[in-house]
């Protein structure tokens, strides 16, 4: 292992996070649309939405992380992959657009009819995106992406036996992860009957995913022998075994209704597939291009490593807090944002009596300070030419905006006045 491999480890970790966190988000949409009609299925759809809604954006960013680290650290490989596989990647991108739009829309959907239609649209995209991304990975794995600007075949690079089976595995694995995660979430949210419903789905989709994975080995044997060889007799073998054991173990845990450990072992089963692929494929990233040859120069690799570590120090505690609040149920309930009735006044702070934002004398003073800041800003930014002067000028102008805001904002804002207390609550936009 050398410096040139480190960003690839980041990319794989990001890919695993995307598959195990955003994958269930796509899978949940599949269960939403297949829920059928009636009161029961409505609850099922709501649970699938509510469990994912607070975290989907954060889960989704893993893909952006993978893309940015890829194009910074292995630019030639990224350019080759993106141009040859442009059709598959574009389909995946459109699917993400529709899925994200569905989240935005569902929060405003009024009646059941609208929700069903939104769920249907989002499920179509949720099948398309994992399939297209899986197919793209199949194209890379089977060596169909040569180095160069759109040098490979734009269609057969992602419509071929390996791509089709990896795409199918991606869809099945997403649905499977979603069902396992939602079984656990239903218990946490005190809806045991829904947990049973998702348990059945988890068992069914788990068996399907397992069969597809086994079929995948047969396809790889014929279509991408290098990867097959790496998986069954090379470095990828341990990962293959881990994946199989974790997959079987998860089914057993789901049968026993031990959903919390099942959540992690299901993630492990899927993550091991990604690791196995990477181990079977190394050291070549694309045909004739090893990871080391594709790597950017020394300074860039170090910059990426420093940025990822520093970013991780900020992101991981934040992410831990979000998941903690979500898993504890603090951030989710039976309804989306805004539908929640106000909690009892016990949690609200004691309300202070009406008071003005700023008193009249202070406001006059603030206005003068703001004008002074504006004059200073003009002098340093517009009259002087040195860099340090511009810095002072910009700071002074921002001070003008902040001070001016408190000087110019209506002073009575938020203070209840007798003549207006009878006005109706806001009904406008």
């Amino acid at each position, binding site marked *: 292992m050398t410096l040139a491999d480190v960003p690839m480890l980041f990319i794989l970790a990001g890919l695993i996070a995307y598959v195990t966190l955003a994958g269930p988000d796509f899978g949940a949409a599949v269960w939403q649309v297949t829920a059928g009609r009636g009161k029961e299925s409505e609850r099922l759809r709501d649970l699938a939405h509510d469990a994912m809604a607070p975290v989907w954006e954060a889960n989704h960013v893993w893909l952006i992380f993978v893309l940015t680290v890829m194009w910074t650290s292995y630019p030639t490989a990224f350019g080759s992959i993106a141009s040859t596989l442009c059709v598959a*990647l574009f389909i995946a991108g459109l699917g993400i657009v529709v899925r994200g739009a569905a*989240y935005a829309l569902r929060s405003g959907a009024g009646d059941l009819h609208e929700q069903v239609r939104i769920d249907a649209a989002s499920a179509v995209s949720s099948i398309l995106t994992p399939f297209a991304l899986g197919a793209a990975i199949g194209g890379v794995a089977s060596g169909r992406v040569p180095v160069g600007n759109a040098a490979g075949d734009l269609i057969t690079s992602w419509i071929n036996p390996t791509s089709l089976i990896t795409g199918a595995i991606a869809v099945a694995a997403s649905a499977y992860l979603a069902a396992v995660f939602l079984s656990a979430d239903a218990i946490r949210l005190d809806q045991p009957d829904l947990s049973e419903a998702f348990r059945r789905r988890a068992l069914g989709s788990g068996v399907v995913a397992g069969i597809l994975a086994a079929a995948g080995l047969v396809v790889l044997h014929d279509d991408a022998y290098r990867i097959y060889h790496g998986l069954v007799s090379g470095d990828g073998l341990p990962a293959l075994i881990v994946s199989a054991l974790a997959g079987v173990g998860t089914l057993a845990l789901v049968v026993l209704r031990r959903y919390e450990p099942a959540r992690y072992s299901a993630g492990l089963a899927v993550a091991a597939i990604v690791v196995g692929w990477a181990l079977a494929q190394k050291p070549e990233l694309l045909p004739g291009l090893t990871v080391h040859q594709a790597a*950017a120069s020394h300074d860039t690799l170090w910059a990426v490593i420093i940025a990822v570590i520093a970013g991780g120090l900020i*992101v991981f505690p934040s992410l831990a807090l*979000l998941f903690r609040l979500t898993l504890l149920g603090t951030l989710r309930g039976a309804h989306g944002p805004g539908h929640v009735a106000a909690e009892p006044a016990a949690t*609200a702070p004691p309300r202070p009596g009406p008071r003005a934002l700023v008193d009249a004398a202070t406001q006059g003073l603030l206005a003068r300070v703001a004008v002074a800041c504006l004059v200073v800003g003009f002098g340093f930014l517009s009259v002087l030419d040195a860099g340090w002067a511009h810095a002072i000028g910009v700071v002074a102008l921002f001070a*003008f905006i902040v001070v001016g805001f408190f000087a110019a904002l*209506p002073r009575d804002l938020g203070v209840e006045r007798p003549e207006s207390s009878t006005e109706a609550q806001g009904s*406008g*936009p």
Partner: protein
Amino acid sequence: MLAVANDLLAVLSPGEQEHLDSARQMQALSFTVHIPLVCFGTAFPIMVVFAEWLGHRTGDEHLRLLARRWTRIMVALFAVGVITGTILSFEMGLLWPAFTATFGSVFGLGFAIEGFSFFVEAIFIGMYVYGWNRLSPRLHMLTAIPIILTGFTGSFMVIAVNGWMNHPSGFRLVGDHVVAVHPWRALFDNPYFWHELVHMYLAGYIVTGFVLAAVYGFGWLRGRRGRYERAALAIPLTIAALAAPVQILVGDWAARDVAKYQPTKLAALEGLGRTQKGAPVHIAGWYDSGREEVRYGIRIPKALSFLAFHDFNATVRGLDAVAPEDRPPVNVVRYAFQTMVGIGTLLALLGVFYLVVRVRFRRLPESVWFYRALVLAGPLSFVALIAGWVTTEVGRQPWVVYGYMRTAQAVTGAAPIRWGYAALIIVYASVAVAVVWILRRLARSEVSA
């Protein structure tokens, strides 16, 4: 946007045009959709949390209700911003693989850090949105602080990359390969970067403020003038009214930096054909490339020399300093620039009027014409924003990396780009319809404070 792209075609040879045409238009469409959402992403959270804070401080239910409703609008727009941003990161590879493949190791770091910034933003926006009435008020308002900060750092990183594309450094090009790459220096030790950052960050507040003010100004004209609406109007409008005049000073600074680092772009902005001492500014008119001058415009002698170099007799480089194939399409750039400056000036005047009325008479303006102007100011601020990006991006043409790589060299070799472009138009049109629908729905829905 179409006009822009078509005009660009004139400067390219026929063989290069096929993919380039679709790729440019697709990129322009993606930016046009994404940039206004970015404005709301950077500027809206501070307004929402201010309303919430003031609501707690004064105990006024109207303000809490306002913050609550704005939160729902904020999250809907953020969700759409996430997906349009994802499309943009895909397009870096799908449309411009040669650009990314050659220079990814130089500029890519900026986007990698931006990815983290975006990550933190998404995490805390999840907490803020779903934490209403579930977290204590103090904790809830604290979760907004990372959102406000990451709105800034995200802009910082993206603009750093754009600043680098306009004024590249931190590498050497040997054949098709970059060597001696110093990504930190390339991105953050760039004198061209600071004015772009400040200009764009302020634009975010101006667009968000005036668009919101336009919505509530329209409500005011229709008779919705209660306490709730007054607060909803005053908060964004006060910020935009203060930022708009400042933007003129910052814009002047930006133009002086362009004069220093990209003289050809400045010449295109002003339609200055020939290098000359005491160069004039022209308002309106049309650049005639045959005569190398602006015709039918209002001429202000020596103004350009003074504005660009603070000296009435300074020499300003004209378009003739570079070969014709290295010049941007002058009229597109020049009209985009004049549109931006014209609208920016009107917005600043409107802002100053509002501030004077506020400070002198301690009330909101009462003239119907003021509110009619506000209703126009919202869409106009958006037009100015896009015109500003056209100015800087088309003004950079024919280069994608100024002086190093032409846009035509960066484009993909994949033919189906035009189909992708068509698909993207359809999908974005549907998303636009959906967003309008959701915003109307959210605006009307009942929200409990």
